């Protein structure tokens, strides 16, 4: 990576962090826009986690939303019934849900490509059915409403601008952690596994172990996002954690640009607001997202940001080549 592009990346990162953290205060007047912003920030966090798995390790876990659902239902149970604080319940259930995610995913990790994805789809479907048919903790299809927002010091509730601000911190931290993992030894091993897992194995990388680590981190992202979702929206139901949600988060990563830091953020910023701006027309969202999935698969395999990076690299290559040619001529 050239010095110029890494300088640009740090500028992008700083700009994103400042904008995300300032946005809640800029939009403070309109609760509707603030809500769209909050949902977008949760999706930025989710897309960051999905990117670590799909973009850097090369696994497409369609049970992502299901793991988020487990954490979300558990958090709501602990805070409402057992009286725990949101800030204690969230880390506890997130680690728990991530462990469950690893346990469920462990056998599937032997499988590759399509078979892994199909297996994760099966697990997701089982989880969705479980949310519906074990209503003791989930209240079945009706869902749980009137979930209190996260508690805060002095017995107050975190709400309004400050809850948006908390989401912004979570999203920025989430993206920052991915950006910190990628150049580290761990991240480089993830990339080695994505590029060629047989070669990685023969180089002494314990592929299964690193896939488990990746899976744990991804599930953690899903779980933390799920807890914030419950605290922010105040209502959860099996539909909030079904396979389409996993697919939508995947689309944000793939549309923005898998395997880049900025791509998935861009994807979430562009795609997450669509359903809220469409209001009651949820079916239109399905049509738009479905069409975008097909566009990404057929025409944009690297995503918008990925294709832009590729085009720029090609352009720069062409200019240096013609420069060399000109040098030779003179």
């Amino acid at each position, binding site marked *: 990576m050239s010095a110029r592009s890494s300088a640009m990346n740090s500028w992008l990162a700083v700009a994103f962090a400042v904008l995300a953290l300032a946005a809640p205060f800029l939009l403070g007047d309109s609760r509707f826009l603030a809500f769209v912003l909050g949902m977008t920030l949760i999706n930025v966090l989710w897309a960051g986690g999905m990117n670590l798995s799909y973009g850097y390790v090369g696994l*497409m876990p369609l049970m992502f939303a299901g793991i988020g659902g487990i954490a979300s239902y558990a958090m709501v149970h602990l805070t409402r019934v057992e009286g725990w604080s949101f800030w204690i319940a969230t880390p506890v259930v997130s680690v728990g849900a991530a462990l469950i995610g690893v346990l469920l995913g462990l*056998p*599937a990790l*032997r*499988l590759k*490509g*399509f*078979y892994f*994805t*199909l*297996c994760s789809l*099966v*697990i997701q*479907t*089982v989880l969705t*059915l479980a949310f519906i*048919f074990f209503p003791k903790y989930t209240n079945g299809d009706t869902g749980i409403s009137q979930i209190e927002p996260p508690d805060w010091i002095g017995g107050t509730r975190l709400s309004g601008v400050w809850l948006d601000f908390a989401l912004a911190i979570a999203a920025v931290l989430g993206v920052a952690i991915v950006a910190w993992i990628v150049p580290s030894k761990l991240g480089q091993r993830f990339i080695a596994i994505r590029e060629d897992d047989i070669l990685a194995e023969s180089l002494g990388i314990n592929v299964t172990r690193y896939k488990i680590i990746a899976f744990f981190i991804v599930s953690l992202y899903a779980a933390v996002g799920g807890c914030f979702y419950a605290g922010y929206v105040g209502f959860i139901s099996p539909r909030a954690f079904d396979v*389409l949600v996993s*697919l939508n988060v*995947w689309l944000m990563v793939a549309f923005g640009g898998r395997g880049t830091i900025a791509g998935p953020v861009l994807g979430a910023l562009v795609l997450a607001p669509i359903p809220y701006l469409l209001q009651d027309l*949820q*079916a*239109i*969202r*399905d*049509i738009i*997202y*479905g*069409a*975008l*999935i*097909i566009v990404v*698969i*057929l025409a944009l395999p690297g995503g918008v940001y990925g294709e832009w990076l590729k085009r720029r690299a090609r352009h720069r290559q062409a200019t240096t080549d013609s420069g060399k040619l000109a040098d030779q001529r003179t």
Partner: protein
Amino acid sequence: MSDATVLVLMSTISTGLLLGAIFALVAAGVTIVYGCVWLPNASNGQFFVLAALIAWSLTTTLGWGSAAAMLAVIILGILLSLVLERTLIRRLYDTPNRNIAYFVLTLGLTQIMSGIFSLTYAKWSDQFTLPPLFEGVTMFGAFPMSNNRLGVLVIGFLLLGALFWFLRQTPYGRALRAVFQNREAAALRGVNVRGMYKFSFVLGSTIIFIGGVLFALAYSFDLTVAWTMAITAFAIMIVGGPGSVLGALVVGLVFGFTQAIVSIFASPTAATFSYLGAMLAMLLVKPTGLFSR
């Protein structure tokens, strides 16, 4: 055995055979396309429901007879799969790991189609029933079975038989199976592989369409059947062995009977749980399935 036991037994057998034939047809459609093109069609459930819904529109709204509607749906199914092949499916024929790309592509298609259905049919009705293909009732001892379901059952098994005959006895079917087994060798022997891809996609999708119409003729249905069918067809394909039509037939019948038996004691969802469990176990133990060559 008391009369009541006999009745329950007979009804379980007839439901099992009927569901089994439909499951086997749809799974055969999915497995033919996967075996040949390497395309796991996640939108098979939406194709299935689309066929049923078109038949419902033709009979209920336009007042066509069930037989005419069935023929029209088959023709529409062929046309739709030709259009899809030309616009989408063809573009990935030469991609190396195309099964995952196709899987995601058809998930996208699923999302589009379910969006369209909830904008249209979901607003018009929540339960869909077709007029029967045949009138009257046939008595098997004390057990009455409507001629309509009997007719659907016979058509289903005739179609499965025709499919087997086609794959084993005709040159086209043999070429198709040759592509299943070894693309390169088939190409060297003069089989037009890309032509076979197209043919098998159209054949498989049309079989799924027929399965949808038969299901709609035998049972009233709602839109949720799409996702259940998609999962069930995948489970049958994985357990039976991807690409094995015999596996689809045998496991399809087993699953049909499972559903019929489980529905006596518990909700059909319990049956779905058991398919998912069977698929998961098979994926983990032997991803090539029971009937793989």
